[in-house]
């Protein structure tokens, strides 16, 4: 794999940060369901909160390969932090891509420095895999929009200060989905209860309620009816990021299993001398590396600017890497035996965290739907 010296230096620094600053606090954040806000401020100091902000607005404007490398390394440390950051990145890329000059000037320079934190609100209680069924409405009223509805499963739901919102401008027209920016302190916006989750417990997932929330018309980011295609184009980049996070998490589980298997002795030998365990490790390594290559491939395609090829490659990367992450984390627990089933070892958390990867930003079933469509239609 050929990387530029800048990409290598970025990867090395983020890896060091993940190992030194994320790993040691991951278990505690998971147990307390608390997001490490001081770590977020460190990410900001390193410019990581400006990855998808153009340089002109104080961002780093990471190329897709660098973006993938960073997501991989952060997830090697703690998936909750990598997820929160990638959602912030979705929000800033929406503003950068679709916002007017004024909106960009107002929001991007500050978001690049870490706060306000962004959220991305597409899913609803009755509209997940098929967001076109959403029922949230933004009704035009003079030079304002009035938003009513409920968004569900919103990452950074509580800790965010600004929300990229998808809503229909016409209740009866499914083709009227449009993208808006909603400051969280707008009257009529409230945060619902925090979900109590299997994994990813340090990341706050909440619902958001919009009850007659009025936003200025200039916070309409896309043209009317262009919201969904905007969401899908942004999510293509998001899926590469989730693919990369899957690889990072899986690598973390593999490394833990490698270390443990060489220390643990049974039948008077390290269990890493037992062929069954060796084969497990070989399978795990191969899955991690295959997922990594698919992810880099998708990132390279995005860098070369071919949206069709990128969309298919991104879905393949997300599908394969996320399913592999679950398998690798599962085997990592198995290799740890009973110890792996306890919170004394990190693989227990990795096993729980891994499952979200096949669900958010498009389930595995939806990724297959996309890949098949590219193959057949």
């Amino acid at each position, binding site marked *: 794999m050929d990387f530029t*010296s*800048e990409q290598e*230096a*970025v990867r090395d*620094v983020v890896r*060091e940060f993940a190992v030194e600053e994320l790993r040691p606090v991951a278990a505690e954040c998971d147990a307390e369901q608390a997001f490490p806000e001081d770590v977020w401020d460190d990410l900001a100091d*390193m*410019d990581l909160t*400006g990855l998808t902000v153009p340089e002109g607005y104080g961002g*780093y404007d990471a190329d897709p390969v660098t973006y993938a490398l960073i997501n991989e390394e952060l997830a090697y440390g703690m998936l909750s932090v990598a997820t929160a950051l990638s959602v912030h990145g979705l929000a800033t890329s929406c503003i950068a891509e679709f916002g007017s000059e004024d909106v960009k000037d107002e929001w991007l320079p500050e978001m690049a420095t870490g706060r306000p934190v962004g959220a991305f609100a597409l899913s609803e209680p009755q509209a997940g895999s098929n967001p076109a069924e959403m029922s949230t409405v933004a009704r035009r009223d003079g030079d304002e929009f009035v938003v009513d509805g409920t968004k569900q499963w919103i990452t950074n739901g509580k800790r965010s200060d600004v929300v990229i919102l998808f809503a229909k401008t016409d209740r009866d027209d499914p083709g009227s989905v449009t993208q808006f920016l909603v400051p969280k302190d707008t009257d009529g916006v409230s945060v619902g209860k925090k979900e109590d989750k299997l994994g990813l417990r340090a990341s706050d997932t909440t619902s958001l309620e919009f009850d007659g929330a009025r936003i200025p018309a200039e916070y309409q980011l896309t043209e009317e009816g262009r919201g969904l295609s905007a969401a899908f184009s942004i999510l293509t980049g998001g899926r590469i990021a989730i693919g990369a996070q899957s690889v990072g998490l899986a690598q973390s589980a593999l490394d833990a299993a490698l270390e443990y298997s060489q220390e643990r002795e049974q039948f008077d030998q390290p269990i890493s001398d037992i062929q069954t365990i060796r084969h497990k490790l070989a399978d795990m390594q191969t899955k991690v590396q295959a997922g990594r290559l698919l992810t880099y491939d998708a990132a390279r395609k995005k860098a070369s600017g071919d949206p069709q090829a990128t969309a298919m490659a991104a879905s393949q990367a997300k599908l394969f890497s996320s399913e592999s992450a679950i398998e690798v984390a599962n085997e990592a627990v198995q290799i740890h035996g009973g110890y792996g089933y306890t919170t004394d070892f990190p693989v227990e958390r990795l096993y729980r965290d891994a499952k979200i990867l096949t669900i958010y930003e498009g389930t595995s079933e939806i990724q297959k739907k996309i890949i098949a469509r590219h193959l057949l239609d």
Partner: protein
Amino acid sequence: MKVLVTVKEVAAVEDEFEIDGTAIDEAYLEYDLNEWDDYAIEEGVQISESEDDVEVVSVTIGPERSEETIRMALAKGADRAVRVWDDSLEDAEMLDVEAKTNLLAAVVEEEEPDLVLSGVQADDDGFGATGVSLADEVGFEWAAVVNDLELDVEGGVASVRRELEGGVEELTDVDLPAVLTIQTGINEPRYASLRGIRQAQRKEIKPMTLDDLGLSADVAESDLEIVDMYEPETESDATLFEGSPDETAGQLAEVLRDGGVGQ
């Protein structure tokens, strides 16, 4: 004001390794920035952030590979770098303190810094002498094992706290120009920022040969010779206390009393 920070790329040995003659086999070595130098860079960069018109120049002695390491210093905020290397250095088995002193002294002559910051020691060969030896060679004031630094740029004085043996510390003033060898813990080295890394790609790393420095090849000659390389026998004589905190504290107290540490 100009601050020169000396940095070294050090070799770290993997847990399992093999010795090849009088050296550790290259295959088991990984290279990284010397830990102490990371603190020296941070100290230099902090000076440039708190004072006006400070240039931070980083210097290393090393092959092209070491550019990666020195670029990290640039990413953290050093303005430019100098890398000294030469075929005759490549051929030398070892660069001892004297050789490094002479090489760095030539750079100091060229750069004329007001302050030189070096690490207390290098993590690999661990001579722990280069900084002070350099000060002696170029006729600068010096302070070793500095763990706190206040700089009075106008008065040309560095007020330092030095860590001595046995937990004793010394507060002293050093007139500039000076060489300070920096102890870990003096600050909290930052992670390079992404934009810092990007800018570092465009910053200058000036290569300098012995010729450029007006030195001849015999600078690398050494009175020291590595005659053997072996793994020392390790012996462990640990006592493990078991029981409640109360009980283990009692057991520890007993050991300390027997050893004559406490009454």
